[in-house]
């Protein structure tokens, strides 16, 4: 890839294009129908309750927003850290970041009890709220990455790419710090209440974004019949394996520090040992989203092979969704420690493990957000010169 890359839009009339577009559009429509039902009927049609107040839509939304930040990895590697090999991929990296954020925000907004009051959220701010800060971080991300993309795609601004890339890189670190802090600032819940959640979320973003990028890149290239070299694919996967290790490190730290503090140990034991389905999901994610991608990316037996690299990315995404589910839902089903050290019993709000079963509208809304993100990338790639014609290894 020493030669300057030639970028081009996806070609028109590729077989399956209409089918893919319609399928994604249908899922987006399904999401809108689900959101409409939730608004007209109320959240009573979801699995959410007064105890598990954030449900499956939040799992999808947080997953997408965290992944959005990480999708910028590749562009940052090129613009900020000078890795030339990633330069031809930077445009797609930026567009994917925007699309994932758009999908996540759509889910988050449509899950509100009053989505019609979005304008209120945009005009009334409480600056003590990390949530309010996140509104600025999200809209700022769109502006910063948008400007970065324009600069990257305009040859006359080539000298500004590094500056724009650095701003975008710093912005996304702050953005994910903000997302993690939404949970980290919840002082009353032992499952959260930890500064470690901010760096943990940054580590997760690197994994989700890298994995999503790898799969989207290969999907688009395959769709348009563009060659992608095995070396490039495995290089992306090796980085993914490294990032998965970093995420596992922070996950381990999260639970070990909690185990050390008596007030939080019960919550950590819940996730690690006693939490039934949540424990199962936790260790499942360690295996699927952590260990497996590391092995697939780094084991000599798989070196240079494309199949294991793709599998590593897919497993990292599945494991990532599971991990966010354990964090968001597993953190809420545990009883609030009204009286630390004493057993609290009562109605549905107190004691025991709260039941939660995500409903179809919740999945509909969440998947709608995923489809919206994918549709956004597909349309952008169709109408903008995002990808080089050749990504072969020569």
């Amino acid at each position: 890839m020493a030669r300057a890359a030639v970028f081009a839009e996806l070609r028109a009339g590729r077989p399956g294009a209409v089918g893919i577009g319609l399928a994604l559009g249908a899922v987006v429509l399904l999401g809108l129908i689900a959101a409409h039902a939730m608004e007209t009927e109320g959240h009573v049609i979801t699995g959410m309750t007064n105890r598990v107040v954030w449900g499956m839509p939040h799992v999808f939304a947080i997953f997408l927003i965290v992944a959005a930040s990480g999708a910028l990895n590749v562009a940052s590697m090129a613009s900020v850290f000078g890795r030339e090999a990633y330069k031809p991929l930077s445009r797609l990296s930026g567009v994917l970041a925007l699309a994932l954020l758009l999908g996540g925000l759509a889910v988050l907004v449509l899950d509100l009890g009053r989505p019609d009051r979005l304008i209120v959220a945009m005009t009334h701010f409480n600056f003590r709220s990390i949530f309010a800060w996140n509104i600025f971080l999200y809209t700022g991300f769109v502006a910063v990455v948008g400007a970065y993309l324009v600069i990257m795609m305009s040859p006359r601004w080539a000298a500004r790419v590094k500056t724009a890339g650095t701003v975008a890189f710093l912005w996304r670190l702050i953005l994910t710090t903000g997302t993690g802090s939404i949970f980290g600032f919840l002082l009353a819940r032992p499952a959260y209440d930890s500064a470690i959640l901010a760096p943990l979320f940054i580590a997760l973003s690197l994994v989700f974004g890298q994995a999503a990028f790898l799969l989207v890149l290969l999907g688009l290239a395959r769709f348009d019949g563009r060659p992608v070299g095995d070396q490039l694919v495995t290089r992306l996967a090796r980085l993914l394996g490294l990032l998965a290790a970093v995420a596992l490190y922070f996950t381990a730290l999260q639970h070990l520090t909690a185990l050390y503090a008596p007030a939080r140990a019960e919550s950590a034991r819940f996730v690690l040992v006693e939490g039934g389905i949540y424990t199962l999901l936790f260790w499942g994610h360690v295996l699927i989203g952590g260990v497996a991608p590391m092995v697939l990316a780094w084991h000599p037996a798989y070196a240079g092979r494309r199949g294991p690299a793709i599998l590593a990315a897919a497993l990292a995404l599945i494991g990532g969704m599971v991990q966010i589910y354990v964090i968001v839902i597993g953190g809420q089903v545990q009883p609030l420690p009204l009286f630390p050290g004493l057993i609290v019993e009562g109605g549905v709000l107190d004691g025991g493990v709260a039941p939660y079963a995500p409903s179809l509208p919740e999945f509909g809304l969440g998947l709608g957000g995923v489809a919206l993100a994918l549709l956004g990338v597909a349309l952008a790639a169709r109408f903008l010169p995002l990808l080089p014609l050749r990504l072969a290894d020569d």
Partner: protein
Amino acid sequence: MNGAADPARRDFLARLGGAAATLALAPGLTLMAGPAEAKASGGRRWGLLIDLTRCASGCEGCVKACGEENGWAGAGRPATDAQWIRKVTVKDRKSGASAGLPVLCQHCAEPPCVDVCPTGASFKRADGVVLVDKHICIGCRYCMMACPFGARSFVHEDVTDQKPHAPRGKGTVESCTLCVHRIDKGGQPACVEACAKEGGAMIFGDLNDPQGALGKALARGLAARLRPDLALGQGVLYRGL
């Protein structure tokens, strides 16, 4: 009520001040808006003392009274029905000794719900009462995530039989208002009134007034707050645990 001004006149002025921000939903039904502070005096801090030695374990008088007063009697779906006040039982793991107590919004001096609310819909009046401005609540439920006491409810479905003094709205969050519509007229919260007919475990009053009923009751012995480790300075105190 130690305010010297004529209550009717004060009421009128407060209405005048809030007119711009208070929306009439229907004849006789308005939503509470920002300038509710107009009625709250910064010199007072409303609070409650709950004496657990007088709170009978099977008694749900306060819960029933609150539901009737504020119109949140449920649709028969406990997981999603509103619960502004509830009875919980706490037990010692080893001895099995237990006590029952009502848990409601604790009207914190440093309310986490107010801190985390992105739009400022969760707010604290000058007299310490923590409320939700239902005009600007977007239904994000972050306050419910932040409340250490599970005191807030999200309205999960259409509501009927609303009380004009306690408007509710599907898709917004709500909690105990300390019956502001009563206490602003010099009355007592409905739960306290109901409790007086049962065990008389609840004493309402001004935490800043050592000569008032609450001040005197608090002087008679130590009372504690839930989760003292969080240092939230709640207006609701418990004795006898």
